[in-house]
């Protein structure tokens, strides 16, 4: 018998506006109305400025470790722009630009990195899940959320974001497999930013693309220039349309680059060359779009200056709001564990400052009981 081809595939790469300013009129014309383009540009600029503010907050001790989004603004923004406002967006931690576009308040993200769980509650009304810290686990939740929606007769889909590094995690593969086999409408978006802290993407995949990971689950796969807002919007339109119409998942790789360190606790100069970073700085999604808009007379220096002033104030206001939220009462971390706090946990909460844990105060000798009463009163007074 002759050898035949059991399977053959190709993966399209989409690029519309390149870093030299070349624009594919056929794909790009009419894709994004001019008024929207300006708003999207402003959103990216604002997100970039907030990154710088956050960096300074961390360095001055006003915020904990923070992962900058710098360079990757066009990826999640392209998705958020295309998705319906009631589609689930299930992201990782470098998708601020898309989250803000969906209406997540900036102070929610700041509050999270300022060490306050209440920041994670704010995304809920916007069909967005809170920031996920362990890599790769959230894609399964995206599948479950959408399956629940379909179960209830709702037609929303989900879009889930993760990095090239997270695509090595078992949960990523399980999520793809579950979504494909159980027919769950999820758009999987891999942000390939080439670095997982210091691990280069070639250690995470030996294949020529990350997009082809989707092939093994029978999904349609696309790759696009993740620093080209036109390309991310175009690719998401194709993908979202496919998933909404068929109820089936699909896969997108957005090729981008992490211009900053992994987080404020990282120093990327230890493991990557300046020349590489400089080359990617030339492909910055924001500069590229500004040049395009300027050439089309949609933008000028005066508008840029006015925008800079506006976003500086907006972001300062967001920081002020985040810092203005009073610290929670220390009992909060007990009270949020269960819908109804177990009696034993309530006892730990109520005696956390006065007794060894688990001690039944009524069993203490009388003088120890009196001392405990005093300590409880003092602790409560000191807290207020």
């Amino acid at each position: 018998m002759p050898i035949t081809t059991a399977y053959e595939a190709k993966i399209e790469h989409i690029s519309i506006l390149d870093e030299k300013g070349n624009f594919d009129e056929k794909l790009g014309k009419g894709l994004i109305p001019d008024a929207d383009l300006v708003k999207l540009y402003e959103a990216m600029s604002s997100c970039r400025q907030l990154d710088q503010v956050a960096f300074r907050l961390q360095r001055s001790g006003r915020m904990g470790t923070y992962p900058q989004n710098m360079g990757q603004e066009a990826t999640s923004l392209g998705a958020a722009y295309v998705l319906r406002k009631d589609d689930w967006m299930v992201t990782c931690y470098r998708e601020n630009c898309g989250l803000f576009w969906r209406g997540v308040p900036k102070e929610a993200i700041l509050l999270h990195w300022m060490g306050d769980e209440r920041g994670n509650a704010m995304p809920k009304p916007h069909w967005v899940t809170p920031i996920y810290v362990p890599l790769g686990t959230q894609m399964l939740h995206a599948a479950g959320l959408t399956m629940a929606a379909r179960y209830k007769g709702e037609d929303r889909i989900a879009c889930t974001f993760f990095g090239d590094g997270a695509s090595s995690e078992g949960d990523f593969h399980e999520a793809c497999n579950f979504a494909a086999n159980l027919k769950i409408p999820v758009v999987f978006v891999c942000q390939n930013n080439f670095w997982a802290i210091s691990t280069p993407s070639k250690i995470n995949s030996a294949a020529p693309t990350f997009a082809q990971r989707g092939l093994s689950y029978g999904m349609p796969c696309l790759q696009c220039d993740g620093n080209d807002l036109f390309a991310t919007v175009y690719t998401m339109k194709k993908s979202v349309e496919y998933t909404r119409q068929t109820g089936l998942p699909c896969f997108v790789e957005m090729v981008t680059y992490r211009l900053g360190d992994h987080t404020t606790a990282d120093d990327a100069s230890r493991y990557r060359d300046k020349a590489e970073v400089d080359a990617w700085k030339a492909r910055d999604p924001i500069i590229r779009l500004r040049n395009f808009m300027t050439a089309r007379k949609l933008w000028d220096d005066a508008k840029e200056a006015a925008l800079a002033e506006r976003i500086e104030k907006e972001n300062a206001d967001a920081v002020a709001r985040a810092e203005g939220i009073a610290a929670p009462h220390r009992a909060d971390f007990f009270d949020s564990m269960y819908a109804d706090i177990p009696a034993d946990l309530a006892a730990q909460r109520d005696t956390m400052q006065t007794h060894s844990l688990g001690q039944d105060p009524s069993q203490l000798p009388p003088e120890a009981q009196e001392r405990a009463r005093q300590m409880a009163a003092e602790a409560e007074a000191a807290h207020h």
Partner: protein
Amino acid sequence: MANLNLVQAINLALIQEMEKNENIVLLGEDIGVNGGVFRVTEGLQKRFGEKRVFDTPLAESGIIGLSIGLAMGGLHPVPEIQFEGFLGPAYDQICSHAARMRSRTRGAFTVPMTIRIPVGGGIHAPELHSDSPEAIYAHTPGLKVVMPSSPYDAKGLLVAALREPDPVLYFEPKRIYRAFREEVPEDEYTLPIGKARTVCEGTDLTIVSWGASVIQCMQAIEKSGKSIELIDLRTIYPFDIDAVAESVNKTGRCVVVHEAPLTCGFGAEISARIMERCFLQLEAPVQRVAGFDTTMPYYKLELDYLPDATRVVRAIEDCLAY
């Protein structure tokens, strides 16, 4: 009333709650057409359809991760993990997400979910089919951990779990899946999660146990000829320390019995709590009868590993000797 074994009691609880609450969905490996490897979900796919009872790919983390999303999306999923030995791959999803979701989002997202898991040894099963990992999950804040020891309790506790707003690990001791039958009401009833049951009253000594070991304890009590109070914890977390303390303050002596390994087994916690709550009434140190700090042996030696009536009687005698 019907005379049911533990498998049938769970099946009945699932049917009755699924009829009442259309947000309950069942998922797992082989639970659909096949009805589960222990037949616990027998007939449920036929009765409720593939939308509510469905087979998944073979991936435990995927099953729990998907269930978390389903729960965040407003359903009450009931994932089955085929054997407790396969919980390992799902550990991250259970402990990093299910357990923490309410707390980390301050209640914006919650995970009402009942994970059903056959547990424990004594059925001549292959490797990794006979362990007792309940303490690992009792040690993880945000979870509730339940283990019934009889068909009546199995139904009442499962109905309660299916109405819980937080994630519950519902361990089903496979050694007593079909070991005996008892009268199980068809009418609705629940047993509160977090409340122990006094199996029999006594004055000489208290035994605290849960799951299949309760049966061994009952045999030991009969053999010993002493007046012994047996407390079946029913819920490992949150556990009913009040019931334990009340009994031990009365008897002054306590033996804790469980299948799981001794070190950091839940008996260690019970023992510490008894120190805190009953110190002045104690007549003897708390004795523990447990699995050993070894790998669970293959089944030729499993009865040497599992607590039995003889070992429990020895502990009773030691405790009473003080």
